[in-house]
């Protein structure tokens, strides 16, 4: 029986088969970096500068530090890890998954942010926020999930210290990571939130939100830590060093990070 439909189908499947055999070749050589979501914009700029200076590329996977830690424990093929706190790196070191204790390369800051059009009064003591809750003017407040995001943990600490945690709890929306918490606020889904200063200074956010820095003394320091993992190659090691040099430090300062 002649079937006109089967033949072209067969031909197509051969073409498809050949297409597959071409791998995404650059994916094999370019080192893979795991980075906390809070450092995204700064790291993009640093990676670009690194590329200009050395001609080398890196691939970066962003998530909350806790999430990345779990992925490393489960064997994810990262070569370098930028955590938003030191504790996760220490935990990995105890499990012999990193080369050493890592290097604290910067200190992160927490900001209170609210969309431009919101009437919320911003202050470092969170008095305006407390008022807004009591007057029922606040429906949703965004933070990163404290279970696996260091900035979420710092946010919880600040809110507890100000005695606002219980009041705010019914209004909380938890971002999967600190970038998502900020996105909840910029999109207007939440009326305010606590996020990373380094994200709030990014061009995409600068124009849509008002921010207020939270005094660094109100929470455990957000020690941004850099650590090489066992399978780190030459490019990853080069980037590890680059991140601690002046050009990278200047970019980090530009995004509001403090020197450790």
């Amino acid at each position, binding site marked *: 029986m002649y079937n006109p439909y089967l033949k072209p*189908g067969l031909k197509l499947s051969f073409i498809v088969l050949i297409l597959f055999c071409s791998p995404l070749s650059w994916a094999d050589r370019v080192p893979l970096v795991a980075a906390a979501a809070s450092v995204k914009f700064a790291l993009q700029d640093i990676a670009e500068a690194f590329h200009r200076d050395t001609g080398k590329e890196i691939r970066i*996977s962003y998530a909350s530090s806790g999430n990345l830690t779990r992925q490393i424990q489960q064997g994810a093929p990262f070569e370098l890890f930028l955590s938003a706190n030191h504790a996760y790196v220490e935990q990995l070191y105890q499990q012999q998954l990193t080369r050493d204790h890592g290097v604290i390369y910067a200190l992160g800051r927490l900001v209170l942010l609210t969309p431009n059009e919101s009437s919320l009064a911003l202050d470092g003591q969170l008095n305006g926020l407390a008022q807004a809750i009591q007057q029922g003017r606040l429906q949703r407040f965004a933070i990163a999930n404290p279970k696996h995001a260091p900035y979420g943990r710092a946010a919880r600490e600040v809110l507890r210290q100000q005695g606002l945690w219980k009041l705010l709890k019914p209004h909380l929306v938890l971002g999967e990571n600190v*970038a998502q918490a900020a996105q909840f606020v910029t999109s207007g889904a939440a009326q305010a939130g606590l996020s990373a200063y380094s994200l709030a200074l990014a061009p995409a*956010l600068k124009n849509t939100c008002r921010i207020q820095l939270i005094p660094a003394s109100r929470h455990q320091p957000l020690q941004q830590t850099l650590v090489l993992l066992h399978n780190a190659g030459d490019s990853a090691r080069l980037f590890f060093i680059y991140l601690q040099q002046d050009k990278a430090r200047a970019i980090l300062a530009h995004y509001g990070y403090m020197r450790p």
Partner: protein
Amino acid sequence: MDWTALVLSIKLSLTTTLLLLPIGIVFGRWLAYKQFFGKALLQTFLALPLVLPPTVLGYYLLVAFSPNKGLGLWLLQTFGSTLIFNFKGLVLASIIFNLPFAIQPMQRAFAAIPRAIREAAACCGMGPLQVLWKIELPLAWPGIISALVISFAHTLGEFGIVLMVGGSIPGETQTIAIAIYDSVQTFDNPSAAIMSFSLLLFSLITISLTFWLSARYEQTHD
């Protein structure tokens, strides 16, 4: 537009679909023609991914292939890599997740072939493979194609399981669906808009294609 993510998604969908083709034909045909002990149970298991939350499957795959013990450890020691956070793992997850989408339409297509035709072919001296190639596949092809199209589209849109089993590694496990999520999270709405619109268009085309195929199929069977 994240081209790497799009290429990766298409590669994942094509691999999954191609691997599901023989699996679907074997199981679909088997379930359509044969009665055997435990058939209902097997069908239940094969239909499970229709109702199972992707995160449940993701969790079990993570547990099964964790490099610290059991199967994952063995894979790591034998092949130097386990199946999570890489492309192969995504293919496995996608195959499992698409089993019902591939098998069920094929099963229906094979079941629709009158028994008399198959018997007549056998009486004419055709072997089972010849019957499959010359009689059954030509008659069942609209069902097979629509099974493949649906599996392809479904893989393209997978999210939860890809994020859990694959992480979000550019060029390796960061598919277009994950890239959309990432760009929304990082305030890059313009690129999220472009990628979402391309996927929307693609899905529309896919669905029209399957409807058109099934309409054709009914015509030829009238």
